[in-house]
């Protein structure tokens, strides 16, 4: 039997009231006397539910409303409309019982105290979250092992590299073993090796503790490797909510055929097989409808001297762009 959702979001919306200032000194002086405000919708009627242990990627362009949604779910921002319930709590009330069960890791902000070693920040969080000493030691040892942090625990945070700091941020955020973990671009600015380590860590943590993870990232590799389900949001609206496979099936209407021919072919000869993306001497890249790709490949092999052929799935970022573009066109 499937468990009950632990995150319930219904027609959630958030509007930001922004002060509109005219340019220059004159505009600044005018704003002192008369302020003009505009209301900008950051999130519009967003609805979804998440079950315990799910790994959900929240993706979209800059300003799409991802972080605002996470901030409402964590209790940092009060929604302008709709309802949100996480672990049975209304997050905006920021009840102690709720805050003890969640954590928020922000790729661009640090919760670790800058001038003291990371271990002191961990100890402080142990006291703040009232983690029993035995449990704290067990979790700390496990996290330190998983993230390979043993040698830097006693180094002042300001002396650590960005990657080391981010790993320590994860330890600080997870020392109380939260049930729900909000991650806002956790791999931002990290090198590929640390990115991979963080991804593996998130998956391992989810598996070990059954934590529910909501992740925003601009790196599609994060989403592909960590998440089972994705929610695509743009201009504050949800455009897709489902498994990555579903997204590919539904929206990846084309595949790419990469051919290396023995002889140069003409555009005229190739046009009937699909859209020509590139034709440079013997190298040909064709965009073909997904259901016909195998058949077209077979025809090409029969009609041309082909040295090499590969069929590529579209990249996730291209599919996401496709989804958003299609929906924008439909909406307009």
């Amino acid at each position, binding site marked *: 039997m499937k468990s009950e959702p632990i995150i319930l979001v219904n027609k959630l919306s958030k509007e*930001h009231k922004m002060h509109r200032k005219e340019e220059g000194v004159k505009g600044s002086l005018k704003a002192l006397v008369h302020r003009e405000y505009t209301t900008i919708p950051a999130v519009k009627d967003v609805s979804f539910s998440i079950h315990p242990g799910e790994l959900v990627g929240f993706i979209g362009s800059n*300003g799409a409303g991802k*972080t605002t949604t996470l*901030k409402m779910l*964590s*209790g*940092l*921002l*009060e929604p302008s409309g709709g309802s949100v319930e996480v672990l049975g709590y209304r997050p905006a009330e*920021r009840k*102690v019982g709720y*805050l*003890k069960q*969640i*954590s*928020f890791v*922000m790729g*661009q*902000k640090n*919760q670790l*105290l800058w001038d003291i070693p990371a271990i002191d920040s961990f100890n402080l969080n142990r006291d*703040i*979250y009232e983690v029993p000493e035995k449990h704290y030691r067990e979790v700390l040892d496990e996290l330190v092992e998983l993230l390979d942090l043993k040698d830097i625990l006693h180094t002042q945070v300001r002396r650590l590299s960005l990657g080391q700091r981010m790993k320590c941020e994860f330890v600080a955020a997870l020392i109380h073993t939260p049930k729900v973990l909000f991650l*806002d*671009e956790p791999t931002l600015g990290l090198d590929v090796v640390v990115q991979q380590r963080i991804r593996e860590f998130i998956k391992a943590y989810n598996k070990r503790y059954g934590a529910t993870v909501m992740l925003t990232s601009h790196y599609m590799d994060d989403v592909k490797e960590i998440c089972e389900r994705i929610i695509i949001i743009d201009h504050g609206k949800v455009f897709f909510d489902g498994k990555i496979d579903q997204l590919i099936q539904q929206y990846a209407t084309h595949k790419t055929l990469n051919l290396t021919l023995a002889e140069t072919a003409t555009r005229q000869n190739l046009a009937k097989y699909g859209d020509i993306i590139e034709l440079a001497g013997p190298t040909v890249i064709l965009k073909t409808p997904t259901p016909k790709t195998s058949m077209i490949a077979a025809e090409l092999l029969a009609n041309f001297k082909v040295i090499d052929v590969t069929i590529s799935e579209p990249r996730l970022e291209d599919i996401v762009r496709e989804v958003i573009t299609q929906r924008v066109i439909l909406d307009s």
Partner: protein
Amino acid sequence: MFFVVVLGNAHAIAGWSHYQVLFLSGLNIVASELILSAIYIFGLWRLPAAIKDGDVDFALLKPISPLFNLSLSKPYISGFLATLPGFGLMIFALIRLGQHISIGRVALGLGLFVCGLVIAYAMSIILVGLCFYFVNATAIPKIAGSIAVDFKSNPMDAYQGATRIILYYVLPVVFISSVPAAAITRRLDVALIALAPILACGLLGLAVTIWKHMIRRYSSAGS
């Protein structure tokens, strides 16, 4: 130094003798350093920038009072050492005063001093709370600092008329140093003794209420 110069030419300031003023100055140093150490450095100077940059996020996400967290998260420890000259000045002034001071009087002075610190803290919170509303108002801490530092150092009896009403009852900075100093070295009106805890509790309650209201206005910062 200002008081030393003045008292070199006058017998007393508003009825306060040379050594009573020196005691007040000593207590004033202790009060200033304690306020600076425990509250001022982060509570007043850092918070406006933290609000503007969205750095209050982590304080709000912790299962403890964000006011407590923000007030004490970056104490200026060395400020505690800076209270030592103040204690020295107070002891010197008491010896020169040659008065017998009972334990009860010291306890009363200490109690009033605690009330004074609570009043200073409450006033800081009220003023800093305004930064949630006026996000760019980084001058607020400076104004708050000026009010506290400039007016709490003088003997309370020096204030008359409207200034007296303001500094006793509206922005009651005289309760930070002057009232406790008077309780130890002079006679103090019973009404003022009774007023100190009432003002401390009332202002703290008001400060917490304003803070809770203001924190709802916190809009974080874009990512």
